[in-house]
């Protein structure tokens, strides 16, 4: 059986986490895409913490002697999942930043050339030459 104090603390903590994430989404500080996993974790933990007999059955099914440990295992699993999720997100952002930096560099070079080319064309017009193709 899970201790009553531990049960109360777990329920309050999970509910608080859920509400904080919801509030972050409401204030547009957190994208829904990233909030879903957080809210899913909080909900599952909330259910496990408040539904004592379910927690007992789960811990028996996977061979954990103390039901409170099953709660910890579930929480730890969600933490790992979230971390992996963020590593994937960071990798994607790294790739996107790379592509953007490369495009910026290429565009700057093109603009630099265009400006030099038009300056040269103006100079040629002044001396009455016909414009030529860029070398």
């Amino acid at each position, binding site marked *: 059986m899970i201790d009553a104090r531990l049960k109360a603390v777990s329920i309050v903590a999970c509910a608080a986490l859920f509400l904080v994430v919801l509030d972050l989404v409401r204030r547009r500080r957190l994208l829904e895409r990233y909030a879903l996993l957080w809210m899913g974790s909080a909900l599952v933990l909330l259910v496990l913490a408040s539904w004592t007999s379910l927690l007992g059955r789960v811990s028996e099914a996977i061979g954990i002697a103390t039901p409170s440990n099953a709660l910890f295992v579930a929480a730890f699993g969600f933490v790992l999942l979230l971390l992996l*999720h963020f590593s994937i997100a960071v990798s994607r952002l790294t*790739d*996107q930043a*790379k592509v953007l*930096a490369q495009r910026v*560099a290429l565009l*700057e*070079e093109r603009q630099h050339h265009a400006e030099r080319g038009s300056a040269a064309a103006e100079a040629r017009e002044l001396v009455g030459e016909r414009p030529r193709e860029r070398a």
Partner: protein
Amino acid sequence: MNAENPYLAVIPAYNESATILSVVESLSGDTTGFDVLVVDDGSTDQTGRLALAAGARVLRHPFNLGIGGAVQSGFTYALENGYQRMVQVDADGQHVPGEIEKLSLAMDENPRVDMVCGSRFLTKTGYPAPISRRTGIHIFAFLLSRIVGQRVSDPTSGFRLYNRRGIALFARDYPHDYPEVEAVLMVHHHRLRMIEVPVRMLERGGGVSSIGSGKSAYYMIKVLLAIFVGLVRRRPIPEPGDDAPVTVTHGI
């Protein structure tokens, strides 16, 4: 855009102000017949300005992307400006401009080859490298030769000449951190052809190698991981019509 000259030399440079001027000057003019592009990879010194003053075209990254990103910018530039061949030259003066001709000749003689690599180990060129680094290179060489079924003696050499097919492949996808070894694998996976020719290389003229001694172990492990992951990757890069590897709208 650059129809007059189909050849491009790409020099990736990160804080190489000590050597960049002499490297650009030794490559430009009529000495090699290559247009010179310096990719200034977010340098905090004068590298980009010096290269521009020396007459090179310069791509300036807003921040440091690492060697893979820098070289890939060169591939993209070559692709979009219609260059038929691109040679990669190190900014530290390690690669001898006169040796580019050997790479070009090898490509002329083997028109079906897409990548020509300059190798330090095909002949006794007396390349001055510490024994630890040479050991690492030989381990990669052994593994890669087994995987691609062709002798690869110097898989970490960055002194390489690419044709249009090679340029197009690597403009689409080029490895991030230590790209040379993985690039050999990609060439193999995409059924392009590569050969090696013996070249002479010098000691570094200045600056700091991208591979410090402390990073060597990390380098080895990272590239080994890349090799083995590359073996089980179903398709190395997305073909037209596949999901893009980089998108904004991916879900969880």
